């Protein structure tokens, strides 16, 4: 008996992708996760642009996580030319990033992913039966967006971040309106932990290797060392030695693998599994109370990891706003010099690696960007393969939904993954 599961256009993901699985006698004959997002050639047209333009330009890779692109590129360039961003500016970068995490995660958890768990086609339909849930989620998302609007001017492609810091840092009274409804926002974020912990998670048992930044003093976002549950502990500069992008003859996809061999997972679940000790104590208490234990192994529990990170972000953002004093200088400046620099920051979807080479005039000579979704693609495919035998027993409609939900576990941002076009796995 053979069966075909076909999703011509994956919905509720950012960007364009498709899935095609052929099963024969309960076994996978072919599995194709296709990305038909058009290539935009960022790494090519960055060449010849000034180092100061790089964060503005790379932001445009992704409208959902522009800050991640701005931060990875700014840090890579700062390392290269020896700029030390002072702590009071660094903390503001962290606040901006927390805003993006809240906005991006909330969008994914409630608008894109929750309808799978709750049995709806979209959040708009879900809102008819669960208006309070969707309204609370939108308020939470709004709060994250407001952080970005205050610090960056706007939430999509903020204008204030720059190499060395910000064009302008806000006054304390500009940030204070965030405190007006913070208790309501925090309650929503904390309640979400209990809600997510009790969703129904489909069974899927696949031991994955998780990779993220780690920092001893904070929940790693803007800097740290590379850690993995497989034992990796290395400086960020070694990223492209540890994880090798390769191309296989039957695919146009560039896939990122540990040592060019094993799939690995980046993103909220990886971060929570590696860094849960650094989560805010009240978030850990709430997790414990809700019956959540670490590590989170089931990939469908990525939604739990996301709500934990949202709650942590709200708690930390509130603390930063309460303790905020306008930095003495919004940015540090320095003369460009020829060199090479690499940096990783934790985009909402996972580790985002940038490496640049510039010349003495500060013009980009070479750029390399590895997005989280490019790294997770092999794991999405591994999960789908693991799932395949049970798909054979389901109606096509159910199997299709489950496959979509499985891909959405990774919050794939296909717009960012300008690196791959099509993935095809054939199994005998």
């Amino acid at each position, binding site marked *: 008996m053979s069966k075909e599961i076909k999703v011509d256009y994956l919905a509720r993901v950012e960007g364009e992708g498709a899935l095609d699985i052929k099963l024969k006698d309960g076994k996978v004959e072919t599995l194709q996760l296709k990305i038909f997002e058009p290539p935009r050639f960022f790494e090519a047209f960055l060449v010849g642009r000034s180092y100061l333009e790089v964060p503005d330009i790379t932001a445009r890779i992704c409208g959902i996580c522009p800050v991640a692109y701005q931060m990875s590129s700014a840090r890579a360039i700062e390392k290269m030319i020896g700029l030390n961003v002072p702590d009071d500016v660094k903390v503001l970068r962290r606040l901006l990033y927390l805003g993006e995490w809240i906005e991006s995660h909330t969008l994914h958890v409630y608008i894109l992913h929750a309808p799978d768990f709750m049995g709806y086609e979209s959040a708009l339909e879900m809102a008819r039966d669960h208006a309070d849930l969707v309204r609370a989620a939108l308020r939470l998302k709004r709060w994250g967006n407001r952080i970005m609007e205050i610090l960056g001017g706007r939430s999509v492609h903020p204008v204030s971040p720059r190499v060395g810091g*910000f064009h302008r840092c806000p006054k304390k009274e500009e940030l204070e309106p965030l405190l007006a409804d913070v208790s309501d926002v925090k309650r929503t974020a904390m309640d979400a932990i209990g809600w997510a912990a009790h969703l129904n998670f489909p069974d899927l048992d696949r031991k994955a290797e998780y990779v993220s930044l780690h920092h001893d003093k904070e929940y790693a976002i803007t800097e740290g060392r590379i850690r993995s549950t497989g034992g990796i502990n290395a400086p960020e500069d070694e990223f492209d030695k540890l994880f090798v992008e390769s191309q296989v003859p039957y695919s146009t996809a560039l896939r990122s693998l540990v040592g060019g061999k094993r799939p690995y997972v980046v993103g909220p679940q990886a971060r929570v599994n590696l860094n849960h000790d650094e989560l805010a104590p009240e978030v850990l208490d709430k997790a414990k109370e809700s019956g959540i234990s670490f590590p989170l192994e089931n990939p469908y529990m990525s939604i739990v990891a996301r709500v934990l990170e949202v709650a942590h972000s709200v708690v930390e953002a509130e603390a930063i706003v309460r303790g905020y004093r306008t930095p003495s200088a919004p940015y540090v400046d320095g003369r460009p010099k020829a060199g090479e620099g690499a940096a990783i920051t934790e985009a909402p979807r996972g580790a985002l690696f940038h490496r640049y080479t510039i010349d003495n005039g500060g013009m980009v000579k070479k750029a390399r960007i590895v997005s989280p979704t490019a790294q997770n693609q092999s794991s999405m495919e591994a999960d789908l393969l693991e799932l395949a035998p049970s798909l054979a027993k389901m109606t096509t409609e159910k199997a299709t939904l489950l496959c979509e939900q499985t891909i959405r576990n990774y919050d794939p941002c296909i717009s960012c993954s300008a690196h791959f076009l099509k993935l095809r796995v054939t199994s005998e």
Partner: protein
Amino acid sequence: MSEGGKLKVAVYKFSSCDGCQLQILNAEDDLLELADLVEISYFMEATRRTKPGPYDLSFVEGSISTPEEEKRINEVRQNCKTLVAIGACATAGGIQALRNWSDVEHFKKVVYPNPEWVAALKTATPISAHVKVDLELMGCPINKDQLLFVIAQLLRGKKPYVPTYSVCLECKARGTPCVVVSKNIPCVGPVTMAGCGALCPSYGRGCYGCFGPMDDPNPKGLIDYFLSQGFDKGDVLRLLRMFTGYSEKFRKAVDEYE
């Protein structure tokens, strides 16, 4: 119109970052109300349920950069009454239009080990280069308030009003001192369409033109002024050859200096 007499709305994505579509979802406070007023019939980023066209109103994000997109935009046009191009990619080609001054075959080799498998047109071009566009909303990204205003006007059957004047007027309206005059920072606000609320100058930096050319701009005059002030020619030209650099008015002005 839908069975309930609501405007049927579709949202499409071509070569882009998703940021303009996201502005629709970013209308948090108004999103659920909007969903009651119109029928969102096709919006893949938000819902897997799609309803067949024709649609009353289609929003198109992104530029046309692959052979597949070249075909698909014609289908989109045929399937709607009013087509609104949203954002810098859809109205000017976007940042990926920087390839238009280079050799795309070389670009493929820079990014992909197997460039022969990559299907890409030589150019990335705005929607209006391919089909009739009824309205253009500029910006990288579009301004969500402007978007909601336009939808509201269309719902009332009015011709939507969008600004025709430059960012300078918005700076004056919000009381931001001119960054060119007070800080000697190059700024392309004088030739750029208003709509963002003059964000960049309010953060102490020059406008980088993400809303594209205003009506009847004089970019050549602005370039000459900056050159006369001793700014680096490359820096000045790159400022106009960025997110909306391929728009005809910016393109022609900059090309003249090369």
